[in-house]
């Protein structure tokens, strides 16, 4: 780890786009559009602070039930954002990954761009950005259980550590810090397995207004909490060590 007290893996639940737009009497889609600036700011802030793993919760399986127009808009927005920032992300040494990209539902053009971005940045090591896109935490666990059963793994051989190897991107370390914006205090089926020992922070700011300064503030809160419980590492931290 590069600097003391910096969480290795930070995850952001990007909540509040709709409310941000509603407060301004603008369509929900404007809120999503405004979220782009926050995403880029946070990626840069995390990289600068020495965070090695950053996960963003962009679009959950439940979101498919939103009105069709909004889903289409989101797909186009994600595609545009991804394409606009791909060269910069690559130049900054950021490896990009997408969690839960179920094949048939994603429009082919976006699927292609996602594959391209993953291929382009696959060799980068400075920071790994995981975008949880069309992701459901329970589904990942169910899928892992299925592959265990298909692989005919004996029940006695299934441990927490071996189970985790069947999750998507098994090299991802446990999440140390989750930031959920807009004051909502729910998990919402997000990376359920990985957030088991995470610290949670719930800033009241809405995601489109979230900026680097807010992010640093969250890191600071995290550091103070660590100091409060610090000295002796918690048992959970030991458990995490060999993953």
């Amino acid at each position, binding site marked *: 780890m590069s600097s003391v007290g910096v969480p290795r893996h930070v995850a952001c639940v990007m909540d509040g786009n709709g409310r941000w737009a509603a407060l301004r009497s603008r369509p929900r889609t404007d809120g999503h559009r405004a979220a782009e600036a926050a995403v880029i700011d946070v990626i840069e802030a995390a990289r600068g602070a020495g965070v090695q793993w950053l996960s963003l919760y962009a679009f959950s399986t439940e979101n498919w039930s939103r009105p069709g127009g909004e889903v289409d808009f989101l797909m186009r927005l994600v595609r545009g954002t991804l394409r606009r920032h791909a*060269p910069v992300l690559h130049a900054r040494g950021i490896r990009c990954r997408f969690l839960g990209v179920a094949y048939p539902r994603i429009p*082919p053009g976006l*699927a*292609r761009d996602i594959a*391209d971005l*993953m291929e*382009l940045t696959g060799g980068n090591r400075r920071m790994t950005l995981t975008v949880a896109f069309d992701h459901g935490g329970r589904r990942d666990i169910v899928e892992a259980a299925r592959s265990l059963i298909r692989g005919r793994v004996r029940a006695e051989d299934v441990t927490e550590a071996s189970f985790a190897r069947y999750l998507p991107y098994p090299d991802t370390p446990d999440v140390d810090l989750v930031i959920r914006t807009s004051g909502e205090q729910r998990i919402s089926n997000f990376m359920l397995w990985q957030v088991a020992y995470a610290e949670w922070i719930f800033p009241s700011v809405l995601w489109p207004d979230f900026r680097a300064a807010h992010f640093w503030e969250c890191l600071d809160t995290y550091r103070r909490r660590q100091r409060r419980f610090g000295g002796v590492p918690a048992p959970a931290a030991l458990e995490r060590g060999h993953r």
Partner: protein
Amino acid sequence: MSAPSPLSPAALGPHTLLYRYSQDARWGLAVVRATVLEAAHPQIGAALIDNSTFMAHPWRRMRNTLDSVRRMLDADEEVRVREAARLNRLHRRISGTDGQGRPYSALDPEARAWVMATLFESTVTLSRLSGESLDGAAMRRLYGDFRAILALIEGDADALPATPAEFWPYYDGMIAGGLENTEALQIVLYRLFAQVPAPPLLRGRPAVWAVGRAVAAPVATAVIVGSLPEAFRRQAGLGEVPGAQVLSRGVHVGTGLATRLLPSSWTRTDTMLGLLDPGRADLGPNPVSSLRGRAGRAAALLRLVAPLPRESAAERSADRFFAEVLDQTGDGHLDWPDLAAMAREIATRLDLDEQHEDRLYEAYAGWWRELLAALDADGDGRVTRQEYAAAASSLAGPALIRVAEVLFDVADKDGDRTISAAEHQALFRTAFTRDVNAERDRYTPGEFVRDFLAFMSGRQASAAYDSLLTQA
């Protein structure tokens, strides 16, 4: 080097001179040049006009040709024999009568010998033009390789003269009197180069491709024409292009120099194919995979920074579907060779054995009968764009469902009634998801048939099926 009988299948393999040529990307130019000479052969020309997809899908056609050559030079004799058998089955389905009522067949020994002759002569000529003439011994070896390939598919090599010394009179005789100014030749020379669709890498960026092509097409034509024998040019009415021969020589010497100066792995056929068709992941492990990784990343970046193509809707118009998927031969109407080309592409990709191949063709033939009955309003034995547009919705009949079922069966290699990730990869060259848990998704017959129908009835574009049936 051991010396088995020079014409036995054991004579082929990675030790041959031809193998070395086939690994060099420049050899693609020789293949294109040979195609021009082949198209002038009356039988081959007629077969190309009626059956070939090279007009509409030249890149795929080139890839398949290079794949076939690769298999026939494989280290494993079984692979070589199998490929020859597959090629023979494919050729057996290609026969008919040309515009003047003369019968043609892709199994004709003379015509097949001419294919080998043009490939040999083109390889020799392009080597000479790029300043690396073959000496007598090398020429004998290379000629022996081509005869061995002819023997592998034909059973003997009697249609080709026994030695290079006897070959040249035969070749000159063919040029002087055995060829015609066929329709296929005209099309290859004047339409193919000018209209060649973008390779998969540049699909979706028609403007970039059109500009590049506007410059490259005349140059390519001049380079190819300039290297053709003079007697042939005269006969085919190919006027003297001023400076063409200088240009031709210049390009060949230039590529020759480039080959010597660039790292050898850059100019390998595999690398080029990987660049042209970046979705492809089946080229196998080899020393250039790291380079292909770099080339793949460059291609990925290029695609990401290029402006988005305007049409991004998943729905495609009936018109576009007709042109991109159904009309495989690119002649503007739908007839049996179009559907046969789809069956052929699938059979080639899955490397099907005879029994499965027959089932697939039968299913497609059934679909063709159904299409004719439903769409051919004027009863002329083919479906025009207008007939298709008038009744496109009735495309998904029971015979098409049958095609989907057979396709599922032949793609399900292990017969477990699901399409696994590996089987999906073999058919579509892409996995379902790019997740590390490769086994997480499986296709059931129901899902497979549903997706196939959604694609084939033109309701839904699909990256997977596009890679199989659409990409040039």
